[in-house]
């Protein structure tokens, strides 16, 4: 089944690897194999918060993610599979006057890139979401074209479209080694066979560090577990997606009525386990009932975990590495679900032409060696490079 030679081998059958495979095949790149250790989408691609926005704070993040938002608009039609993209809007909530001022600055930056975001005051936010605790509301940024999509459907959509274009996808196949000769990639060893290739893409999500280690490359990132909860179905009370700068949490209400959310604990130790922790349960319960006092009586139905490969500035690392010819990174993703359509298209462009598209150029791995991380002050994940006030 697995051919002895492929023009490119993509390691990781998640949304990133599959989006890249699809875009390469669409542009008639050549023979493409995607190797996945478990079932497709088994990692963070089917464990994330499904939330879509481009209303960030920095030029680099806005430029890249807004490209992705434009692709999300037509993704179902392009892949001939309903990914259930819903334009319910995305609100970044400010709870203090300082956070509100930050939202004001961010909206100005966002407008300079043509985003149609709106700065909302306390009254506007409470009108939009009356269930919010007024004490936690100072204002916010609303991106009306933001929303959510079903993460599993997106994985299956990319996989199906890639297969129709001739991509070979091998689930339940583990990469055990990568052969490098004279600084150039020669082959990929898997649990089933060895594949000759001169191009390997590391799209292994939470396992990206292990894959990079196979060629002696040390990534600037570490693996962290993020946890989420879902409640029993409730009456509709939360229409838009919501991210809270003050509590580093993110949430939405599903079409079934379930309240779904995640929060980052203040100290997040590196972890590869998918097990749920009580520390996270209580942290989320405190934060969500603080934001929505009415949730105190809502019953928690399930808690789960997923692992991500997180860099010190939370931004991805995309592109080649200096030491190894033919080894390309597509990792360091925390906002990888919303970013997948753009990353897939732009990284495919780079692989086809050798020219790095300007939207992904800033996410090169050398930025850490140069001491030039990308600072974005609108993320709801604690960042090591942030100097004050958490990730606010």
């Amino acid at each position, binding site marked *: 089944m697995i051919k002895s030679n492929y023009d490119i081998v993509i390691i990781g059958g998640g949304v990133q690897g599959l989006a890249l495979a699809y875009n390469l095949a669409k542009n008639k790149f050549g023979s493409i194999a995607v190797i996945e250790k478990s079932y497709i989408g088994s990692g963070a691609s089917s464990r994330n918060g499904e939330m879509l926005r481009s209303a960030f704070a920095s030029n680099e993040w806005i430029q890249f993610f807004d490209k992705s938002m434009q692709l999300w608009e037509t993704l179902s039609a392009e892949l001939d599979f309903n990914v259930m993209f819903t334009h319910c809007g995305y609100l970044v909530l400010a709870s203090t006057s300082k956070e509100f001022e930050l939202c004001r600055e961010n909206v100005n930056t966002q407008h300079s890139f043509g985003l149609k975001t709106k700065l909302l005051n306390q009254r506007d936010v409470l009108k939009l979401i009356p269930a919010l605790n007024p004490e936690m509301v100072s204002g916010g940024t609303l991106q009306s074209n933001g929303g959510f999509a079903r993460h599993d459907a997106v994985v299956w959509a990319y996989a199906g479209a890639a297969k129709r274009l001739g991509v070979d996808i091998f689930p339940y196949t583990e990469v055990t080694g990568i052969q490098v000769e004279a600084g150039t990639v020669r082959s990929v060893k898997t649990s089933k066979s060895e594949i000759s290739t001169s191009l390997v893409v590391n799209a292994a999500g939470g396992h990206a560090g292990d894959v990079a280690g196979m060629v002696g490359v040390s990534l600037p990132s570490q693996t962290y577990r993020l946890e989420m909860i879902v409640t029993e179905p409730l009456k509709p009370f939360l229409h838009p997606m919501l991210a809270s700068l003050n509590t580093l949490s993110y949430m939405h209400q599903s079409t079934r009525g379930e309240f779904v959310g995640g929060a980052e604990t203040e100290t997040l130790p590196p972890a590869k386990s998918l097990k749920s922790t009580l520390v996270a349960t209580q942290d989320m319960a405190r934060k969500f009932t603080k934001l929505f006092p009415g949730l*105190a009586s809502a019953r928690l139905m399930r808690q789960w975990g997923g692992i991500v490969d997180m860099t010190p500035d939370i931004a991805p690392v995309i592109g080649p590495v200096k030491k190894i010819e033919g080894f390309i990174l597509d990792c360091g993703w925390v906002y990888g679900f919303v970013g997948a359509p753009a990353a897939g298209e732009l990284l495919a462009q780079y692989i086809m032409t050798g020219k790095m598209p300007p939207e992904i150029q800033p996410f090169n791995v050398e930025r850490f060696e140069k001491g030039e991380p990308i600072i974005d002050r609108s993320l709801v994940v604690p960042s090591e490079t942030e100097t004050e006030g958490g990730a606010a």
Partner: protein
Amino acid sequence: MSKKIVCFCHDITETDLINTIEAGYDHIEMLKRFTGVFMGPCQGKMCMQNVLKIFARETGQPIESLRVPTLRPPAEPIPLGSLATETLRGDDDKE
């Protein structure tokens, strides 16, 4: 068309499961994600055995060899308010 409901939370029928497996969602975790079985308020407590039996039969695998999807906490739904405290009742009991 069979109207045999297997998942009582989301009204998933035996036919739904068979069609899903035939469409290529042939891992128990993919079947769960595609149909929503094990994801309703019962979290699999009512449907798990019957889903596994149907899945084993349709994929030709012995039921003993199937990996049961991870059973996630809590064991039964509990209000968020009872978790949003500094200590849990279990902690008090120990004192």
